[in-house]
């Protein structure tokens, strides 16, 4: 993997984890039941922890003196490389879990591949993260099934949540130029394998949850190229406020 490639990859991985972790943290203290409040906070903690590793490595590869915090707090929205799925609002518990499942179903096979790449620094972060994400996917799958097949009301809410979140899911598995380049130059990384694993989780879980899988006619999303939805500006305004207001301060 060239330094440019690993820098780009680290930003993608780090930004996915950071922005989704930031969204999930909004639930802390407001969950539907104490045990699940704790569980979701755990996932948020795992993701933000992973983002620190990826962003630190990105800064190190870049060699311009940017650390995890410089990258998290001093980039503007067009420099963020996460999937637009990650920045979508939490909605209700079911929407959050649906978004989480669609992300986890992509995140896990992606990390499984990165565990095996030649770049040792990338592989070692992936190896640490994959253990956490395996649990995330199990947990979010269980919840999608539980709510999809729970009561009539929960079923209806989950079907609607799926319709709401689905337009943003395609970006995860539709390769862009960078994915194709990595597939070509960094075996065993293979974008098609991620795509296949994602569909397999999606079909299995939605089948168990009695949810109809919408058609895959996705609107184009270009989060990975830095073109985000209107949501991101507000997330950053809140998240970055303090370090930007007091740039000389150490916290």
């Amino acid at each position, binding site marked *: 993997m060239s330094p440019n490639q690993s820098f780009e990859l680290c930003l993608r991985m780090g930004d996915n984890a950071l922005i989704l972790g*930031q969204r999930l943290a909004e639930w802390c203290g407001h969950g539907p*039941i104490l045990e*699940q*409040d*704790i569980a979701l906070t755990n996932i948020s903690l795992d993701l*933000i922890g992973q983002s620190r590793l990826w962003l630190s490595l990105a800064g190190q590869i870049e060699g311009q003196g940017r650390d995890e915090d410089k990258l998290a707090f001093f980039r503007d929205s067009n420099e963020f490389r996460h999937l637009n799925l990650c920045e979508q609002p939490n909605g209700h518990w079911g929407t959050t879990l649906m978004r989480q499942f669609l992300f986890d179903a992509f995140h896990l096979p992606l990390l499984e591949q990165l565990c095996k790449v030649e770049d040792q620094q990338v592989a070692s972060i992936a190896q640490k993260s994959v253990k956490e994400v395996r649990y995330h996917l199990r947990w979010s799958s269980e919840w999608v099934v539980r709510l999809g097949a729970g009561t009539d*009301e929960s079923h209806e809410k989950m079907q609607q949540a799926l319709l709401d979140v689905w337009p943003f899911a395609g970006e995860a598995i539709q390769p862009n130029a960078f994915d194709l380049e990595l597939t070509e130059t960094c075996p065993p990384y293979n974008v098609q394998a991620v795509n296949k694993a994602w569909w397999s989780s999606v079909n299995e879980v939605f089948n168990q949850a009695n949810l109809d899988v919408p058609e895959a006619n996705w609107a184009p999303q270009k989060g990975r190229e830095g073109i985000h939805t209107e949501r991101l500006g507000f997330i950053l305004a*809140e998240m970055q406020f303090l370090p930007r207001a007091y740039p000389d301060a150490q916290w």
Partner: protein
Amino acid sequence: MEQADLQRLFDSKIEQEIRIEPKDWMPEAYRKNNLRQISQHAHSEIVGMLPEANWISRAPSLRRKVALLAKVQDEAGHGLYLYSAAETLGTSRDEMLEDLNSGKAKYSSIFNYPTLNWADIGAVGWLVDGAAITNQVALCRTSYGPYARAMVRVCKEESFHQRQGYEIMMSMAFGTPEQKQMAQDALNRWWWPALMMFGPNDSESPHSQQSLNWKIKRVSNDDLRQEFIDKSIPQVEYLGLTLPDPDLKWNEERGHYDFGPIDWEEFYRVISGNGPCNKDRLEARNKAHNDGAWVREAAMAFAEKRQTNVA
């Protein structure tokens, strides 16, 4: 056994510092008193998540963000052990939550104050958790077994939170002039409410004497408050900050700091519902509970279906 014998057995256990366990006979008033105290404590942990969670999205570094998330999550965990401890006295968590949400049950009044700048997260960890620990270390020896054991675990985590809070205060107090000003502002606002956390003066405390006799409470409100003040002052001095109490001075004769009068009118006003955030806190709890109703129902329905399928 006759009632009188049961009472004698109970009294002798209290006398000999033998813990009372859930299946032991206990006077009804002892059960009620413990239930009130443990459930209030549990509610305080849960409501206490709100003012701190208020800053998670705005934590100024990723390290601080992760630490704060983990801290607020710990408070949820404390709530869980405490609700479990309270359930051993015969009231379900659902019933306790209903009392919290309806405003019938109380929680620590300190959480009705707002967190207004980042240093508040430091001040809450240092002073609010610090005052809580002062109280809870004493409660590790409380006479009701499940409560005492919960307190041992809670205290370990709380003392970590307190150090973390003080460390935030250090970065702020030794930081830029703006940061130092935020730290001073936070200290000014949290100091008096933290002192009120120990409750009314002993002479005014309605449940105190009976609780001391039953060894539910081990040290009086005023003694705990004094202990907290004495140990906090050197910490304030180290930070180079000042306390908002002109009457504070070392009293050689007593071997303690003297301090100015506490505004008990404010204390009672906040307890009775007119603090700065009472309404917000209760609304947030009710919203979480009501919005989560369909989720809990679906989870129950799903579990039942599963069971039927297995059977």
